């Protein structure tokens, strides 16, 4: 069960807003601090660990940059959107950030509502209104990668890349 306070965003939220181009080669800490700095300055300072983003259609449209990693590094509990850009979704799987699709989610939540996600039965509950919605299920393997730290630990365990400490 994942539960947290909701922050609401609209349609077509792009990766450049989450990770501005000038910071592509910066450190993870610098990248984390810059999330939504162009459209919602100061937002990162208002976050509590476990907060949840509710998005509209086509969340994460744009580039391959590791925007999902920045959301993970902010301590967000999950993203749940009407639909998610496929490349952003891949990065969510690869970096171990929970990102789910749930038709109807955008209308069902207001900012600061509390959301409760149950992946076991693919349901989402609005704790303030009592509304319950169905989350679109994803293949078990992708879910397992997404919830167990992503791809790097797998490659490290197989001796294909150096561990971060050594590298």
């Amino acid at each position, binding site marked *: 069960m994942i539960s947290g306070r909701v922050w609401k965003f609209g349609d*077509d939220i*792009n990766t*450049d*807003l989450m990770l*501005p*181009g*000038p910071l*592509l*080669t*910066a*450190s*993870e800490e610098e*990248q984390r601090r810059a999330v939504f*700095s*162009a*459209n919602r300055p100061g937002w990162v300072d208002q976050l509590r660990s476990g907060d949840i983003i509710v998005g509209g*259609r*086509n969340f994460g*449209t*744009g*580039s*391959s940059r*590791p925007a*999902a990693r920045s959301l993970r590094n902010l301590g967000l509990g999950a993203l749940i959107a009407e*639909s*998610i*850009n*496929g*490349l952003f979704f*891949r*990065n969510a799987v*690869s*970096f171990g950030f929970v990102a789910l699709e749930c038709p109807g989610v955008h209308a069902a939540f207001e900012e600061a509502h509390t959301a409760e996600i149950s992946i076991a039965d693919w349901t989402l509950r609005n704790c303030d209104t009592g509304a319950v919605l169905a989350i679109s299920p994803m*293949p078990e*393997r*992708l879910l397992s990668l997404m919830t167990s730290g*992503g*791809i*790097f630990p*797998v*490659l490290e365990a*197989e*001796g*294909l*890349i*150096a561990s*971060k400490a*050594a*590298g």
Partner: protein
Amino acid sequence: MDGVISRKHWEDARMGMTIIEKILARASGAAKIGPGDLAVVDVDLCVLIDLSFSRASWREVLKVHDPEKAVVVFDHDVPASNRDTAAMHVRGREFVRRFGIRRFHDVGPDQGISHVVVAENAYCLPGTVMACSDSHTCSAGALNCAARGLGAPDLLYALTTGKTWFRVGETVRYDLHGKLGEGVSTKDLFLYIAGSHGDHANQNVEFGGSALAHLSIDARRTLTTMGAELSAEFATFEPDQVLIDYVKARNPAPFEPQYPDPDADYATRHRIELDKLSPMVALPDRVIRNAVPVEEAAGEPIQQAFIGSCANGTLDDLAEAARVLAGRRVAPGVRLLVTPGSQRIAAAAAKAGYVQTLLEAGAVVTPATCGACYGGHMGVLGPGETCITASTRNFRGRMGDPTARIYMASPATVAASAVAGRIAHPGRI
């Protein structure tokens, strides 16, 4: 991951496959795949770019599955503009040496934007699977290749294991007929599609139809490159003789193009008459459902005009810009920056006289790089400025300061606007 496919809920298992379904079925060893499947496939080509080696993305690789299936192209920041990216290039060169990567495009005569270099060398063969950690990798779909942008960890997985995964989405088919009018390009076609059909998240787009006879590979590549902006999983063209000749002239390796089955199962089929299209422009901040005919934005004053990127730095694009600019001058107070997609294109444009025409009109022609398109270098926007760009994106802050406004259009419209000093229709300056 192994090659197991989880078959799920096809509408009708007897129906044929689309181009992407056929390529992915072949690459995963399955007889048939369809929407809802998770395909684990062999990757025929892994392309690493300079950003792959950035300190925030790179992890030291201990084993490469097959160095002959790897290509390294430095593109986002070439030549290096700062110490961070210079160090990134050093890491990339060390990787190339250590694993004996033969196909390496460093700063120099074969420098260019990865998607352009991959196409002009036909590294991406028809019917194959290609991976690269840049969103515009779908560009190679013009060559009938299942090419998709991955994230950096995905790409390292493909590089070290030879495999990756794709969620198979449904396919939307666009049948293109007729011929584009003068001053109208496939960029305008893209803006029309993005404006009227919106995003294609979790879907593939497939292009075919009788118009292919009039569309160069450059023109097709503009369209497939912009597939990323539709949020499409894949964007592919049907193969034809033009494509087969293009590939054979560049790469001696054998290949097997994939055609859609006659009874392929499409989610939707749209017919577009190219003769009816006119120049379009995307208004600032987002690409999708945000395009209008140029007339509606005409008159907006600009400070910068940019022609370049993987989508619009082709030889066709430079020729079109030169056609519009011939005998004209860039307006005072406007910077027109032109960035060829590769040094090979720059050389061809020089030979054809396009570069001379651009220079005489007052344009600044830069070396081939991703450059201004992503706000990296050579054309970053300042506070409050307005730019019209023939590149890939108009997102807020994309090309520099977040208060700058970015309109996006075709090379002809950008060139015409640079002359007028304000957004202008290419046929009316």
